[in-house]
């Protein structure tokens, strides 16, 4: 497979981008921020998983999902259920009328652990569930929709409806799900406290490592033939179909990948924030995640990470000092980015900074011989 050597997978600009991002996330931020702030960055990065998946689905595949919160939430809930069961051992919950079940079930007069919760006693099962439940759901949705050639606007509306359904269900069935407050008060992971500073550091670095795994997978997809087919589909779906490709299968695949990424992000959120609630499942967070992606650049997997980071930093800074301005700023950001910068930050970088950086790389010893483009990739423009 000489076709997939590193220099085919990444241009030197890509390598530089990965290195810079790694330096920022692994060196600069941990050294300059205290543990509370770093934990916040970790939370923002959990959204970056979703936005990287959105770059694949939306930027490359042209499938706009307004239901990524569903997968994020399911991933987060799967882990939260495991942690909650661990936190509600019979000793910890001896004051309840039924010890050994999560506190919110006790408050809702449930006396027995529901069967759905039983398997989440096992850590292995929970880890599998984090990945498999959202992916299987995405497969079912994708199969039903794409095989019937539902796409574009209709797909967006239906995914939106699905995220609305799940939110109503979680809030309505509070005895089984924790309701509107979600699953809170998580304490330990396999007997190891997740509330210490040390744990925060560990989760941050685990999160960054997982994010890079996702980024490499995404990079591989965009640079492989699969990525080219996705782009072709986005432009002229019928021509790809007439060339003998089963368009639906490619869409289903990329949608499932996006869902799996989002689920990992959700699980990282649960670990870092020690709770999961329906406010990360519904329509509003799902659309916000699309906006993070749009701000970063819908065609750039690295841009999507910066988009998630910067919008959230911006929100925190503005929200702490001028809470009433935040919605105005966010609204203007949406309209402005869509109208003026459809390719987001990455588009601005490509246009203004990339040529200069390229000239600089021509002189740099390490990068001089690295090809500035991969074998089959001319720049991809937004349609």
């Amino acid at each position, binding site marked *: 497979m000489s076709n997939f050597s590193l220099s085919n997978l990444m241009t030197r600009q890509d390598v530089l981008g990965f290195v810079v991002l790694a330096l920022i996330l692994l060196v600069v931020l941990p050294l300059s921020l205290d543990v509370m702030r770093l934990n916040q960055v970790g939370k923002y990065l959990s959204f970056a998983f979703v936005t990287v998946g959105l770059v694949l689905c939306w930027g490359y595949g042209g499938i706009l999902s307004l239901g990524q919160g569903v997968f994020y939430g399911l991933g987060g809930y799967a882990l939260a259920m495991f942690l909650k069961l661990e936190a509600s051992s019979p000793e910890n919950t001896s004051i309840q009328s039924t010890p050994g079940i999560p506190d919110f079930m006790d408050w809702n007069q449930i006396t027995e652990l529901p069967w759905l919760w039983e398997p989440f006693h096992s850590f292995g099962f929970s880890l599998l569930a984090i990945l498999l439940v959202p992916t299987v759901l995405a497969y079912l949705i994708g199969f039903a929709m794409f095989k019937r050639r539902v796409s574009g606007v209709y797909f967006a509306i239906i995914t939106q409806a699905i995220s609305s359904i799940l939110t109503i269900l979680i809030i309505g069935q509070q005895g089984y799900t924790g309701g509107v407050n979600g699953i809170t008060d998580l304490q330990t992971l396999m007997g190891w406290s997740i509330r210490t500073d040390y744990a925060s550091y560990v989760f941050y670095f685990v999160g960054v490592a997982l994010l890079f795994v996702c980024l490499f997978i995404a990079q591989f997809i965009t640079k492989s033939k699969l990525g080219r087919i996705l782009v072709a589909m986005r432009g002229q779906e019928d021509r790809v179909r007439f060339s003998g490709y089963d368009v639906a299968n490619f869409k289903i695949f990329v949608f499932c990948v996006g869902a799996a990424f989002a689920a990992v992000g959700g699980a990282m959120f649960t670990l870092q924030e020690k709770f999961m609630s329906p406010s990360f499942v519904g329509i509003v967070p799902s659309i916000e995640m699309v906006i993070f992606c749009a701000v970063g650049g819908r065609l750039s997997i690295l841009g999507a990470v910066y988009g998630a980071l910067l919008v959230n930093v911006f929100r925190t800074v503005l929200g702490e000092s001028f809470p009433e301005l935040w*919605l105005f700023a966010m609204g203007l950001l949406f309209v402005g980015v869509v109208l003026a910068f459809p390719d987001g930050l990455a588009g601005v970088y490509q246009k203004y900074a990339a040529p200069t950086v390229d000239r600089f790389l021509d002189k740099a010893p390490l990068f001089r011989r690295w090809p500035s483009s991969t074998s089959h990739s001319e720049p991809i423009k937004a349609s």
Partner: protein
Amino acid sequence: MFSDYSATELGSIFAMQGFAGLILFAVFLLMALGLAIIFGQMGVINMAHGEFMILGAYITYLTSNVFADYFPALFGGYFFVAMVLAFLAAAALGALVEWTVIRRLYHRPLDTLLATWGLSLLMQQSYRSIFGAREVGVEVPDWMAGSFQVTDFVELPVNGLFVMCIAVAVTLAVYLLMFRSSWGSRVRAVVQNRPMAGAVGINTAKMDRMTFALGCGIAGIAGSAFTMIGSTGPSAGQDYIVDTFLVVVFGGAASILGTVASAFSISQAQSTMEFFLGGSMAKVLTLLTVVIILMFRPQGLFTLKVRK
């Protein structure tokens, strides 16, 4: 779940929930009509549709305050003035939005979704800054306050009937305007074949703006009508948006009859199930059913037979 009730009880439960469902039907229909024009005819996803409705509601609130302060003798009729004002205000804002934002995005339908979502945030925060975060309610005129006792179980509130009448009137008006007037045929011509419509001398850009403004104006009327049956808060519009889009998509875009049929079936299903299963489960099951039906029939219940 039916076995706990006798046959007569079931009969009156269905009748009662059926009438409640009719009010919900009127609400859905009013919400969906404007969107059926904007989304069904123009293909623009207007996520700020709910906020245009809220604009109508706030205009009604302001009008009722003005009438109460300055023309108390005419208070019984303020609503009709308010409805016209709500239409005009929402339509004017709609035209402005079309001119500044939407017209640049016609070739990128998914991006209109994001831009209008941003717009909806801007509008929500504006309402919050101007009217405060608390919900406001209008004073319903006396003649709208009572209710008719139809049978022992079934009573019809006058305000509900009134909203139904508005829904029927607006539907008829939209039907006549879109399908029986020369203006409507021009709108449909632009939708079906833009270059040809332009070639025969229709100003397509102007048609777009007026169509969008009309859809927003109807949203304003809808919001105005809602003040008769509930209160209004800055972010109330967001709660409606999913229902509204589902009604339009389920009915089949570009079909008024489809919108009516889907609003009717969704509202009746939800209202009947609500009695037996509670509000949230009824909503979940209704939405789920609609989504599953849409998976098998993506084009919706009714479709225009047009060669593309």
